[in-house]
């Protein structure tokens, strides 16, 4: 059996493959199932109040069992050793807000592997990412939807996803995937409605993989070489990781670093390349899900405009009016702009992780295409 089939056997991929009887009558699925508390919730954490993570027992049935957070779970106050981090440019996920944390076992640390490579994490490392919305109606309050984990055991990464209950007091392991409606008021005061997609294990794997093996995407030096505000002050994230003992010192001083996509003081081309790296390069790169199309969107590959699709005709004539992936000076004829603004699930890009368009990101891409001088032959 190939490794891609049974990544995280515990993570319910194999059970999915078992034959399950479902009747034609009466098998309608609920749109928004309330997560049920599994019984018993194993394992029982030992006494104490530090993080409790045993890679051989993970994933646990509940998020609270790890004790990554202190106080009320929904406050997401990190426990000792749980360090917040933030990539310079983040993936667009239907305007969901995100909190990210890293934890490593005592004495374990990651190593630099290249500016554009994910850090070489130790066994037992856990990456924690919580997705939430503010100003959720009807009560204009925060709603935490899910908390995703990536953890490393015996050299391999594994997925877990915890879906929060309505009371926001607990989140339960669920890798089957589901939808949940969210209505919130956005920054401009507009009411937005979406059917938020909580991914299944197979959906996690689609983006988070190299060949058949699960991997993290964000924690690369190019994305972390920036200042962040910690409880004890502002620090460069990589330096903070070293201080925490989470990163071996001695990494290069001059890291080729991305920029914030929405930082208008930065050159437009770097903002665009940073945006395309974080939103597109997890598929459009060698050994990734969509390696067979010609674009290469990783930050270290996109200085070459051909890799961005400039004046490159699309492989497939799905919509002949879009004559180039990027048509110089002409966003209206550019497949990239068309796909970034589409919500048709067979057209939109990225294919997974969004159901609505990122208006501001697409607008930046439109500006950039308009600014490219000349025309395509």
């Amino acid at each position, binding site marked *: *059996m*190939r490794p*891609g*089939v049974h990544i995280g056997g515990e993570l319910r*991929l194999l059970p*999915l*493959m*078992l*034959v*399950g*009887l*479902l*009747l*034609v*009558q009466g*098998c*309608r*699925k609920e749109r928004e199932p309330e997560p049920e508390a599994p019984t018993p919730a194993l394992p029982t954490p030992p006494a104490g109040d530090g993080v409790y993570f045993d890679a051989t027992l993970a994933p646990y049935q509940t998020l609270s069992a790890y004790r990554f957070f202190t106080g009320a779970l929904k406050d997401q106050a990190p426990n000792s050793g749980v360090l917040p981090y933030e990539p310079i440019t983040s993936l667009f996920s239907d305007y969901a807000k995100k909190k990210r944390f890293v934890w490593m076992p005592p004495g374990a640390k990651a190593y630099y592997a290249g500016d554009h490579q994910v850090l070489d994490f130790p066994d037992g490392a856990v990456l924690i990412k919580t997705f939430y919305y503010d100003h959720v109606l009807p009560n204009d309050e925060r709603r935490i939807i899910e908390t995703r984990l990536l953890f490393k055991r015996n050299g391999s990464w594994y997925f877990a996803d915890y879906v929060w209950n309505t009371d926001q007091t607990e989140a339960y392991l669920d890798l*089957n*995937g589901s*939808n949940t409606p969210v209505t919130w008021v956005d920054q401009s005061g507009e009411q937005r409605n979406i059917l938020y*997609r909580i991914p*299944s294990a*197979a*959906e996690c*794997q*689609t983006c988070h*993989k190299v*060949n*058949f093996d699960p991997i993290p995407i964000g924690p690369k030096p190019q994305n972390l070489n920036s200042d962040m505000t910690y409880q004890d002050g502002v620090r460069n994230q990589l330096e903070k990781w070293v201080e925490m003992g989470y990163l071996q010192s001695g990494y290069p001083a001059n890291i080729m670093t991305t920029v914030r996509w929405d930082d208008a003081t930065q050159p437009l081309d770097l903002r665009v390349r940073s945006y395309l790296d974080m939103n597109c390069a997890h598929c459009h790169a060698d050994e*990734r*899900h*969509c*390696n*067979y*199309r*010609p674009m290469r969107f990783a930050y270290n590959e996109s200085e070459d405009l051909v890799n961005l699709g400039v004046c490159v005709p699309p*492989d*497939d*004539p*799905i919509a002949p*009016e879009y*004559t180039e992936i990027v048509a110089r000076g*002409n966003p*209206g*004829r550019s497949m990239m702009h068309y796909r970034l603004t589409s919500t*048709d*699930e*067979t057209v939109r890009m990225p*294919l997974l992780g969004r159901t609505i368009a990122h208006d501001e990101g697409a607008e930046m891409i439109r500006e950039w295409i308009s600014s490219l001088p000349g025309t395509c032959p």
Partner: protein
Amino acid sequence: MRSTLLSLSLVALTYEAYSQNTCATALNVGLGVHAVDAVNGTEPLPVSCATNGNPGTLAEWYTYTATVDTTIRLNTDVAGTIWVDTRVHIYTGTCGSLNCLAGDDDSGSNLTSLVTFPVTAGQTYTIGFDNRWTTAGFSFELAYVQPAPPPPPPPPSIISFTNVTQGVSGSGYCVVDMNNDQLDDIVGTSTSNVNILYQQANGTFQSVNIITTPADHTASWSIAAGDIDGNGYNDLLYGGGSGSTFMMANNTGTGFTEVSFPNYIFSQRTNMVDINNDGHLDAFVCHDVDANVAFFNDGNGNLTFNQGLLGLTCGNYGSIWTDYDNDGDIDMFVAKCGCDPVDLLMRNNGDGTFTNVAPELGMADSHQSWSSAWGDFDNDGDMDVLIGASSSGYHKLLENNGDGTFTNITAGSGIDLFTGQSIEWTTHDFDNNGYLDILGGGGLLMNMGDMTFVPNGTFPGNGPIGDLNNDGFLDVYTSGTIRRNVGNDNNWLKIATVGVVSNSNGIGARITVETPSGTFTREVRSGDGFRYMSTMTAHFGLGEETEITAVTVRWPSGIVDVIEGVDVNTTEVIVEGVSTGLAAQRDEQVQLFPVPAQDILTVSGLGSGQVPVRVLDATGRLVLRGNLLNERLDVSGLTPGAYVLQVFTPNGTTQRSFTKE
């Protein structure tokens, strides 16, 4: 340099500085060159007469009044001006009631527009330009079209198409017979809607919009059709991005109810096929990011989710079911792409298991393909294949050697010279010369009869394929437009299959048409290419052949029917197990008595002999399957209640309701 020329030449142009910003203030122009300063008129065009979407938000308005009956050419590629990405629309009528006459987006060089349209002396035509692509100014030229010499007659193997506007709501298109009248209908689907355009005997369509229960998943990636529950009406299978939904037709084909499963499936190609050959139609779904999915049907309304029987790794894009080894059971090929691009050929072991034989047959290569076209290209009685590229840059044409092996004959076939790529690859005989052509890569590749292929001058587009005017020539439905096959003098035959022991569509049946000039083979399939659902009526081009020796149907059940006396240029319904034939009877003659029935139901109007029938209960469940014997059916085993009797004759299916005491 061109812009310099522009400023110089502007002096010589007729420059109108008037406002042409609304229909009412349209500028009447004559022949010659006219400059448009910018597309900034505030009244948008009422409707787009050109390709590529809505009519824009701004427009420039002109009119032209013809002085003679002729044809006018309008082009925006005017010598001495820069190229501008224009779009033009020509209307008849008056402001407020304009009707499309012609239009064009990109037929000129470098995205300029070029259109010709007929005019009648004294009539005024409205010309509109929109801002679909740009508001930049440009120039256009109106001129008489010089009479062209008549075009040379096309070679007989080359086929052409005309456009017939025919909208259907939704997407997820099918061209398939939905009401058992042997005429292909057009189906469009959306979350709560199935829009069926029923083809009428006179070639028009009757649109029926059916509100359904809301589908959890729409047919965004693909659609398949087939009669899963055996009630005589095709059900639909929607392949969505996070799951699959069955849309089950009721017992009169007038309503649909959705059935969805909670399992995550990144659906790609969907098919309906009797995978385990138990007589009940199953379903198959390619999974992009995980092991493939099958839904097994126990014949009592229960579908069972299965994952892992038919391909374990991700990257499954285009499945097609075909009996490649001529052993009577159905096998499956999956064109794969992306995360695990190594194609699969799953050989049916005949015992409900499948073995991937792609490695030993030379098909396990990392070809980046989304679909493959399987058909008997050389009319030697076995299924050959073209595995068409989506992005890997090369196609593979494999000839079936008849012994379960294949030979790569791409070199020299013409396929090696064809560089077009696409996600859709299908094979049908478009010019009815008896040889299967290939639609894919943005082209129509005509089979020249010697395993060479030549691109046709016209590409009808991608979409479901069927006969949408019942002329025996295959048409293509693209969004909003029938690409109608103009046809030629070649003869043809269409066969609609009705399974009795086998699944009721006869999916998986192998049909052989024997003639003095050759033998032609087809399979009944649900789901070919990548996305669409094409007709399940088997179509045979016969060239100049006027005689059919015999039609043989080998059913999935193993039953073989041999029918003689079939005429060319007809549509024949072949019911499983009735090869002795029955005198054709008109449906209205079928009468039931006594009603309510007791132990024996008499069905009059069909004459003596055996006629296959089925009885469904009030919930559509199949409760009896058998034969009328000399017009009598034993219904003593049925509990009292309301039933529907289906009678299968060569004319099609007749339904009558009755009650049992």
